[in-house]
């Protein structure tokens, strides 16, 4: 068996490998001082890291009383945000609308385009899509269906 990689050694240390794998690793460890040394180092590292992180634990923390009021203020806040956003949207649209109205078009209609102009004599007039597309100078277009 070739030398054991770091991942497998880690799994071995944490008891996270299959019985077969475990046996194979142990066999190799008994024959290879390099891997054995590596295992020893990694074990020490794991213990040290766990211990170091656990040293950050605080005991006897004063548990703050659960703030039921916070639940209400949170929903109020969301409502407030929704209202302000809607208001902002309305103002925005009014602004665009007013802005467009103030600028008169030099040429009100620039393109007149027919969409469909093939008549079918067997169909009634209303059943067919006769349409005209009108585009103004700002690129705004409207399709008018003929009935």
């Amino acid at each position, binding site marked *: 068996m070739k030398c054991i990689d*770091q*991942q*497998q*050694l*880690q*799994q071995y240390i*944490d008891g*996270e490998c299959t019985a077969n794998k475990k046996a194979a690793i142990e066999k190799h460890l008994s024959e290879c001082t390099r891997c054995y040394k590596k295992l020893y180092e*990694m074990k*020490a*590292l*794991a*213990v*040290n*890291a*766990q*211990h*170091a*992180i*656990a*040293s*950050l*634990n*605080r*005991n006897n*923390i004063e*548990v*703050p009383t*659960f*703030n039921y009021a*916070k*639940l209400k203020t*949170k929903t109020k806040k969301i409502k407030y945000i929704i209202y302000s956003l809607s208001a902002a949207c309305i103002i925005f649209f009014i602004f665009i609308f007013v802005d467009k109205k103030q600028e008169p078009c030099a040429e009100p209609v620039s393109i007149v385009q027919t969409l469909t102009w093939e008549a079918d004599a067997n169909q009634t007039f209303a059943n067919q899509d006769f349409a005209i597309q009108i585009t103004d100078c700002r690129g705004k277009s409207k399709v008018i269906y003929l009935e």
Partner: protein
Amino acid sequence: MNRFENIYTKNYQLIFNVVQKMTCNADDASDIVQETFIALYQSFQKNVRIDYPRSWLYKVAVNKSINYLKQQSKADNIELVNNITTEENYFEINEQQKIVQYALNKLKPDEKILAVLYSEGMSYKEMAEMSGIKFTSIGKTLSRTLAKLGDELKKLNYEMY
């Protein structure tokens, strides 16, 4: 005391400690823990069935911590967080603890989460579920993370065994 308050009192310290270790910031940790319990309270109100409140809280708190860390790393505020944590006197922390926080802050969000969960004595399966890291990648990521953390601790002359 109702069921919720009972769970709150019994689990506050545990959840706070996990979040506090992941965020390395006691103030933000308090906020995340409050949000976590608010989520539990709201789930109870909606009659969501929660059989194991402790692991439910754990999972939600870890999730919120992951989001927090990702935002932090996006904003590239890691140095700033470090300064706040070490200057703040919310809790008195000693030099050794400061070193550990500093070393932890050198890890990427995923690595940090994994390191903390590992220190909680979780199995690979549990760590995968909590962190969202693939089960098959846990061994590899963990060994890399521990090596990185060990190097940082050594650099800072942390007292090792």
